[in-house]
């Protein structure tokens, strides 16, 4: 069984009875390895569709939690349970509860830094005073407004006014939380969250390949959330100076938010500022200031300085990229695709209204970016399989389109893997209109393939 990964949160969905040794069958060695290496910042096991479990039944998953924690420090735990199940798990693991428990998946995502929607008003209660404090701090750090009830009576009273809160958190327990450099995307900015002491370790906990490819696919604003940083040493200073230099090649901006210099030499700030890093006291100083956002490059990508040509290796694999895309769209729409035209050029799109786009980068033995441009009707049709109903909610369509491009990326990865070419994929990006897409790739040369689905033109573009 494999986890479904969305917005950096991987969830397993076992069903039925988690009984004794049988439940070990849910996770093969390959499944555990795949989970360890999938880079999710949170790994959860949903108990929503489990009607019965015993200690041995849960142990198979708890063993996996330990492996994942040991390897990548992701937050791990169970979610989607009722009060009775919560009490049972607490009873089973009373002295060795080093994983987390989240009443629902929605509550879990409040504690994940990749969660897109911040600023939720959250009522929370736990019998354990230290848990109440830990949850409040985590929620606050993730941009929410926690309201802590100190007694059960106070909680019950406040909870009656359900509509006053976006979420009500109870029957939740925070075990060891993630310590990796977590990533979340807000609009066109990427936010990294840093913790505690920044030293030589930052070189291994920061995913530099992911960062470089984010630059390559057009992200231009990188914000380091430093509220939880205690101090920084000279190794970390060098690391960030180099990062700023490489960002400058792309006209990208790096900002530090909430960094205090009580335990870090003041001179470090000057060095970082000299290398181009900007400092802001609060996250809202950037995210709520549209003019500043534009100036920093988060809404309009600057022209990339180092245009890179498609290389021979990429062109040789072109049929695989096209096949992966066509097969995915065919699978999602149940419609046949007709290949109309293939050309090596800068992208050319009829700027008709109602076109939306998406892109995903890949890196490893090969690197580059796949761009897909859909008429809204095809995008809606392709997303119906995942959503279930036809919808006109453009946000939902764009979100689902991101999942679809993820599938394309996954398929490309598999097809290239069959040819012994190993690649990883970046987070997908979506574009609500052609203009926002053109800002990123207008000047890039690549292979453009025009396809027809149900008489509607659909565009595939491969570039570096």
């Amino acid at each position, binding site marked *: 069984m494999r986890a*479904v990964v969305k917005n950096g949160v991987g969830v397993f969905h076992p069903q039925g009875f988690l009984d004794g040794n049988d439940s070990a069958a849910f996770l093969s060695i390959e499944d555990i390895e795949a989970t360890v290496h999938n880079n999710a910042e949170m790994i959860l096991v949903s108990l929503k569709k489990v009607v019965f479990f015993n200690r041995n039944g849960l142990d198979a998953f708890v063993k996996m939690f330990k492996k994942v924690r040991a390897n990548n420090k992701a937050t791990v735990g169970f979610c989607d349970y009722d009060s009775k199940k919560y009490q049972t798990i607490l009873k089973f693991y009373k002295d060795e509860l080093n994983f987390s428990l989240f009443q629902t998946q929605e509550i879990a995502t409040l504690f994940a830094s990749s969660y897109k929607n911040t600023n939720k008003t959250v009522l929370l209660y736990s019998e354990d005073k230290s848990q109440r404090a830990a949850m409040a701090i985590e929620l606050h750090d993730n941009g929410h407004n926690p309201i802590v009830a100190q007694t059960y009576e106070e909680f019950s009273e406040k909870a009656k006014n359900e509509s006053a809160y976006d979420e009500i958190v109870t029957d939740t327990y925070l075990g060891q939380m993630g310590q990796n450099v977590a990533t979340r995307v807000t609009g066109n900015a990427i936010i990294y969250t840093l913790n505690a002491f920044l030293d030589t370790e930052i070189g291994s906990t920061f995913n530099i390949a992911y960062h470089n490819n984010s630059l390559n696919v057009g992200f231009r604003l990188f914000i380091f959330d430093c509220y939880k940083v205690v101090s920084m040493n000279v190794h970390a200073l060098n690391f960030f100076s180099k990062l700023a230099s490489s960002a400058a090649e792309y006209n990208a901006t790096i900002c530090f938010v909430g960094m205090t210099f009580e335990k870090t030499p003041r001179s470090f700030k000057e060095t970082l500022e000299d290398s181009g890093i900007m400092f802001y006291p609060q996250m809202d100083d950037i995210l709520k200031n549209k003019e500043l956002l534009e100036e920093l490059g988060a809404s309009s990508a600057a022209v990339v300085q180092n245009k890179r040509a498609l290389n021979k290796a990429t062109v040789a694999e072109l049929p695989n990229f096209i096949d992966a895309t066509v097969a995915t769209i065919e699978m999602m729409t149940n419609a046949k695709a007709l290949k109309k035209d293939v050309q090596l050029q800068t992208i050319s799109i009829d700027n008709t209204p109602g076109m939306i786009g998406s892109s995903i980068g890949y890196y490893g033995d090969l690197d580059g970016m796949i761009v897909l441009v859909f008429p809204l009707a095809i995008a809606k049709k392709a997303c119906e399989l995942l959503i279930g109903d036809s919808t006109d909610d453009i946000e939902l369509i764009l979100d689902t389109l991101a999942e679809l491009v993820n599938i394309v990326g*996954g398929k490309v990865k598999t097809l290239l893997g069959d040819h012994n070419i190993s690649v990883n994929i970046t987070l997908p990006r979506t574009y609500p209109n052609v203009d926002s897409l053109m800002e990123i790739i207008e000047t890039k040369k690549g292979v453009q393939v025009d396809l027809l689905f149900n008489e509607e033109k659909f565009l595939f573009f491969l570039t570096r």
Partner: protein
Amino acid sequence: MITQDKIEDFIERIPPAPEALRKTLSHLKAQDLTKAAVSAKADMALNAYLKNIVNKPIFGFRNEVSDISQIFGILGVARSQQAVHNYMMSLLSPSKWELFKLNKSSFYNLQAELTANWQKILKHLHIENKDIESAISLLPASIIVSEALFSEKIEDVKLLRSVNDIDLNTILKRLCETDLFDIAERIGKKWEMEPITIEIVQASSGVKPSVDAELNLLGKWMHMLLFFTLSKSVYIDAGLNDFIDFQTDYVMEIYSDFMQVMEIQ
């Protein structure tokens, strides 16, 4: 990925029940075990199947039972009819499983486990009705249909499910506006199974409750039994645990009774 044409093609290729089987079932319907055994003897594969299945440990017979008349005699009319229906279903199972890691033996074991536990449930509910007993034999049709339709699309299904917790039944419903249990119903009709059998299996999908309260209750028991069975390691390994969605809310009403009948503590 899967089209209505492919579904029609699959249904089209299901052979009608063989003559010997039809006669056997007709005699069982008339409660004539002797004539039923004579008709069954004409079908060697049915003979072999019945011997294999009734001698499995879950049926608990001390000595090997090998003669067809003896088998029918021991099983009685209702369970004989159920066994013959199970055999019909096994005719539909593929020679080589691709989507699910099953083989002839593990599929027969699945049928035997479902059958034996369904008997326990019906005994607990004090139900003696050969068509209701037979209903369990149609349940694995949903698994066979999944294998037939999705086996060539394993990689697509895996990719789709890597980004969305979506079961095969929902995928099929969204693509073709028909689901695995609708196709099972068509198989049941083609093989002239009783309407009551078909309705219970439809309810056991967990997403299409029957308007008949009694049949709906049986659908709940069957849904729970299916997931009790699919939570065993051999079937988890086979990839069967999440082929359809387990509807926990649908079965909560019978949860305590089920735990008692299956002696789960």
